[in-house]
């Protein structure tokens, strides 16, 4: 949908992504409520089934793979509600997306200020 040249390493969360990721994002949005987080953690497969995730989305959730979750249409602010349940911070997510260790990713951020 975007006519602009792509920006390397960047997924524009637009209508096309939002269409693809609707079920996944809707499930993540439900995690704003504590009881829904508990229901997911008690039986993730049943919870994903109830929200109509496709197999690709389910596998990305099982793997907690941020690149796969983004490719499956996830929006990062919704995904944070999923990964937060597993104690992952934004630096953990950054490390997982850039193939760096968490310490190396933090150091990269620190160095950006030099």
């Amino acid at each position, binding site marked *: 949908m975007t006519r602009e040249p792509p920006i390397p390493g960047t997924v524009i969360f637009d209508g096309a992504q939002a269409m693809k990721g609707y079920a996944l994002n809707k499930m993540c949005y439900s995690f704003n409520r504590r009881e829904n987080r508990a229901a997911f953690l008690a039986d993730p497969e049943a919870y994903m089934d109830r929200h109509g995730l496709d197999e690709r989305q389910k596998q990305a959730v099982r793997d907690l793979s941020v690149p796969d979750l983004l490719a499956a249409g996830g929006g990062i602010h919704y995904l944070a509600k999923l990964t937060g349940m597993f104690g992952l911070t934004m630096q953990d997510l950054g490390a997982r997306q850039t193939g760096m260790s968490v310490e190396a990713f933090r150091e990269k951020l620190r160095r950006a*200020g030099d």
Partner: protein
Amino acid sequence: MARIVGGIATSHVPAAAGAIAREQTDDPYWKPFFDAYPPARAWLAEVQPDLAIVLYNDHGLNFFLDTLPTFAVGAAPAYHNADEGWGIPVIPPFKGDPNVSWHLIERLIDEEFDLATCQEMVVDHGFTVPMQLLWPDHSHAGVSCVPVCVNALRHPLPSPRRCFKLGRALGRAVASYPDDRKVVVIGTGGLSHQLDGARAGFINPEFDRLCLDKIVDDPDDLLDLSIHDLVRLAGAQGVEFILWLAMRGALSGRVTRRHVAYHVPASNTAAGLLVLDHDP
């Protein structure tokens, strides 16, 4: 008569709320970030605003993709915070001023900003973190709020120029409110940061410093930027700079910079703070 006494732009880094809750604001990591705020609080103590118009973006608390407005204005007697799902503590509610809200809504729609209006609205870290930084320990009792939520999450997003014009219209709407109010306009978010993709961790101090400089005296120079330019130069979430431009748009009189601070990193973000006096 209502008048705008000034504007503040600040990052809304959610991890700062965690640092406040865990009393880590003096830790070596966080201290340079939090040390930026006392001058902003001193300015607020000096100008004594009784109304804050807070231009921010929701991150999936009040709005989901089922119904996602580009611009939404709160018209509630109170604005509650709520669980965002990943652990920042819920804080007490903020007081609204529905009479002012409806005046602003009427005037903005008169000026062809076709808004969503919210008689109930929960506010997330985009709203609450700046309020905590500017009025610590819930010391905002004398200040009512009007939240103005701008979509900065799912593209297409409103352009920098459109957001600046929204600010201009807000400024005119405030100036036409018949009762006395001293208004501070707050824009939240930014500066450069990117949370998603292989470019996660992207920060651009050179562009941030240009923005911090230009927005004071030459905001027009920033209005030809497209959203795509902002993503490229400031990162996928650095587009939140549109909220700063909306704030700046509301100040159409003489503007004087009272305080500026810039610190990298606060969590994944280049943190900026700007305080502007406004003489209408």
